């Protein structure tokens, strides 16, 4: 497939438009306590049960930075191949809202903790590099609940003060598919690092999507619209598709695009204007005088750098080099940290005489199918890596056939049973004793003399018949390779 065919373009009569997308991803820092207070961050707690005096902005309360969250942000920066800023500053972003108790959000404006970096995407037409503009730490706001009462709005401050990393990409993305790959890659990196659980249903990962369009080949950027707070990859893709087409239609009609903030209506599948540039808030950013500039030493950064686990790109390279996997196989196995862990455990348990290809096929084939059917994560797999390794080894050393292995695998699902035991208990061991098989085949030839003659006269199709009979007579346990050999000799 040529590269050209994979380009995402919007066509109108004679014109082709390219879509330019930049993302501001809000990733909740994986941390037991909040960015500036000791309150818990557990998801799904009763409303207003994880709120300290600081989170609720009581008079005289002061923020104290959570060092763990700082480490998490720096680790993420390292994972994004980004520059770590030894000095960063917390600013106040001032605006009024019922779920913003302080009347300002503590964020980082001019001096973020992480500077420029990059992320590599594996696209069907090759790799693509997406630039990272910056990553900064900020507090989340609370939640306003408007639909519990016709007259009143309720406010839940459990989220108030939870640490977020805002990861801003450069406008390097060009299609909904790239956006999907980018989000998945970011999530994968953060999950490897343990800095964000990436759970989009729980709101741990959401994004503001900046979309603009321009004539194909143009170097100028078009006027962009920002679609606020989209919380699933599917919705991001739908929103981009709708928004890009809306903008192209405006251009085609000779109208101009207003720079504005829009909302994506997931029910109607359309974006709607939220506020125009003129109505944009003046956030009156200024350095938070309650917090000193955040300064980290080289030692502090290096200590974190030295303890960064192997990340997906490196792991993929190693899987290809060390295990001779294809790029495709390696990409699948490293995309999720738990899958990679599972695979590596299978590899370790297979011991010396291992069949890598077979292991990969079993994981991405049978195991993935089961997980899919049962809607399970690999971390919840009903078959442990250890037992899967044993199963693969049983196939590899000829104890059972691939076909029998599927039966064994089915039985393993119930309580993660040891395949070795299943094979023994059910007597599923492959028959590889030539004498036994010869006797069995002699009997079959004897019982089917006429067919044997027909075969010898040239009806070669009948060979399959004899193989089938032999397998049937052995209860499926005969070593198919030996059966072939013996039949060829005897017929």
């Amino acid at each position: 497939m040529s590269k050209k065919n994979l380009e995402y373009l919007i066509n109108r009569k004679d014109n082709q438009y390219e879509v330019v997308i930049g993302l501001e991803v809000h990733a909740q820092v994986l941390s037991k306590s909040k960015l500036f207070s000791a309150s818990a961050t557990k998801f799904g707690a009763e409303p207003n049960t994880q709120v300290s005096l600081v989170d609720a902005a009581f008079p005289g309360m002061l923020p104290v930075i959570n060092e763990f969250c700082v480490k998490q942000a720096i680790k993420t920066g390292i994972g994004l191949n980004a520059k770590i800023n030894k000095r960063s500053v917390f600013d106040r972003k001032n605006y009024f809202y019922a779920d913003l108790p302080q009347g300002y959000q503590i964020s980082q404006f001019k001096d973020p903790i992480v500077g420029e970096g990059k992320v590599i995407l594996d696209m069907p037409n090759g790799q693509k590099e997406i630039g990272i503009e910056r990553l900064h730490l900020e507090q989340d706001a609370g939640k306003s609940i408007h639909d519990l009462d016709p007259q009143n709005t309720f406010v839940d401050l459990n989220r108030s003060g939870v640490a977020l990393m805002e990861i801003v990409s450069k406008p390097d993305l060009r299609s909904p598919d790239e956006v999907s790959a980018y989000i998945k890659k970011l999530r994968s990196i953060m999950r490897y690092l343990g800095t964000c659980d990436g759970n989009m249903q729980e709101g741990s990962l959401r994004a503001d999507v900046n979309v603009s369009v321009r004539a194909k080949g143009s170097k100028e950027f078009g006027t962009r619209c920002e679609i606020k707070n989209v919380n699933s990859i599917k919705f991001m893709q739908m929103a981009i598709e709708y928004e890009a087409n809306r903008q192209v239609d405006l251009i085609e009609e000779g109208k101009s695009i207003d720079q504005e903030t829009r909302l994506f209506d997931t029910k109607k599948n359309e974006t709607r204007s939220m506020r125009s540039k003129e109505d944009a808030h003046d956030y009156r950013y200024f350095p938070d005088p309650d917090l000193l500039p955040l300064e980290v030493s080289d030692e502090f950064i290096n200590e974190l750098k030295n303890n960064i686990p192997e990340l997906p790109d490196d792991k993929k390279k190693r899987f290809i080099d060390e295990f001779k996997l294809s790029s495709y196989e390696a990409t699948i196995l490293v995309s999720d940290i738990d899958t990679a862990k599972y695979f590596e455990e299978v590899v370790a348990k297979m011991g010396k005489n291992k069949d890598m290809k077979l292991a990969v096929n079993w994981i991405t084939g049978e195991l993935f199918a089961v997980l899919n059917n049962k809607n399970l994560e690999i971390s919840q797999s009903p078959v442990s890596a250890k037992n899967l390794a044993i199963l693969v080894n049983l196939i590899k050393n000829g104890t059972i056939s691939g076909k029998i292995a599927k039966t064994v695998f089915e039985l393993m699902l119930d309580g993660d049973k040891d395949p070795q035991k299943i094979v023994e208990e059910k007597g599923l061991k492959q028959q590889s004793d030539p004498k036994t098989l010869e006797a069995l085949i002699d009997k079959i030839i004897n019982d089917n003399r006429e067919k044997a003659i027909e075969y010898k006269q040239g009806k070669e199709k009948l060979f399959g018949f004899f193989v089938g009979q032999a397998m049937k007579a052995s209860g499926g346990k005969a070593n198919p390779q030996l059966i072939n050999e013996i039949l060829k000799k005897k017929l």
Partner: protein
Amino acid sequence: MSDITKQSLTELVINIKNKKLSSTEVTKAFIERSEKSKELNAYITEDFTSALEKAKRFDQKPNFDLKLSGIPMAVKDLFCTKDVKTTAGSKILNNFVPTYESTVTENIWKEGGILLGKLNCDEFAMGSSNETSFFGNVQNPIDKDLVPGGSSGGSASAVAGQLTPITIGTDTGGSIRQPASFTGTVGLKPTYGSCSRYGIVAFASSLDQAGPMAQNVKDCALLQEVISTYDPKDSTSIDFTRNQYSKELSNNIKGKKIGIPKEYRVDGMPKEIEDLWQKGVQYVKDCGAETIDISLPHTSYALPTYYIVAPAEASSNLARYDGVKYGFRSKGENLIDMYEKTRSEGFGAEVQRRIMIGTYVLSSGYYDAYYLKAQKVRKLIKNDFDEVYKKVDAILTPSTPSSAFKIGEKTNDPVSMYLNDIFTVPVNLAGLPGISIPAGHDSKGYPLGLQIIGKAFDEQNILNIAYAMEEKINFKNKINDWWIK
């Protein structure tokens, strides 16, 4: 023992320790005098019943190892006190009862102090005359209808009027030193980062600092020793070795070099103030110290800088008073309407003025010209001090450009009101310690103060200088208890 309320903190501590006085007797004496002094309007909230109970409990099981064993004390109503209403002098917090205690007051109670009540102050500490308080003017014990200064006006009035043996205030641009000067008392603004800001209703976070106010320097040193602690709950609290300020207090300042900054000789400064300053120079010399003429070239920019930085921070700090979570709320048609009504009715005129100024100077398009520039000037002001401290140990200036003025005299002229802070704000901008001590009287018999400014963390040095000068000055406040019928 008669005239308990005339005793200094140091005397009371000794007398309680020696069992010449019980905490109950002392507490009762100050409560009685406070009750006779309602006309001063020094208190916003009295906590007398509870104070007496605590005093009794102390007497039943006394602990004389503490620094403030059984000493009753009223504090500025900017300090959050657990289960005791804390208003910051504002209608918007009129019904606010904290469930927590400020670190500074906690330190006092841990050393045996007993809360008498909460003292009046300018609304959110914004004012120089205590006239912006929602709870009304405070009278200066020196004379009827005279302002006590601000914003710690209730605190200054209560100490001068002997309603409390000692107190604490907060100082953002002079709010301890100016009222101390106006009432003939001693007030110390410690180095920024010396006293925790945790639990103090914030005005301007980068300038706010709590400090002691007392009848004399030794009492002031003792209270500073108690309230100054490193506090991890305040990110701007500084972990430095703190002196035992009262124990280490010494009047030996021989050979100390005291700077006299020429820029503090401002236009239109009354001759009385100039004369007082000259006398101050003489006192210092009499104590064996040396004076040196110095220059702090950016002094004239301090006031405008302060009136950009402080309102900017305040506009943001006061955003939390929105009627949503606690405090006063006015009914509105919708959220925005509720905000507007709550804040229009809940904040007084001066607070609203400063919120408007602060919002303006932080607005996009004005930020660079005002806030950013002010921050640069602030750095220059700090550099001025760093430079002169290579040559001198401390700086001597007048505390205020005038003595106390009449209630209502400057209400309609905010700029003239702001000028009160002209000698005190540079100290806050530079984060330095400063102390005001009474040094004389003007022709009307109103007290005048001198300010000693120190190096950062050098409270001991300025306390020593103040202590030595105090001895030479031998100041006597002229208070005739005019308000007691």
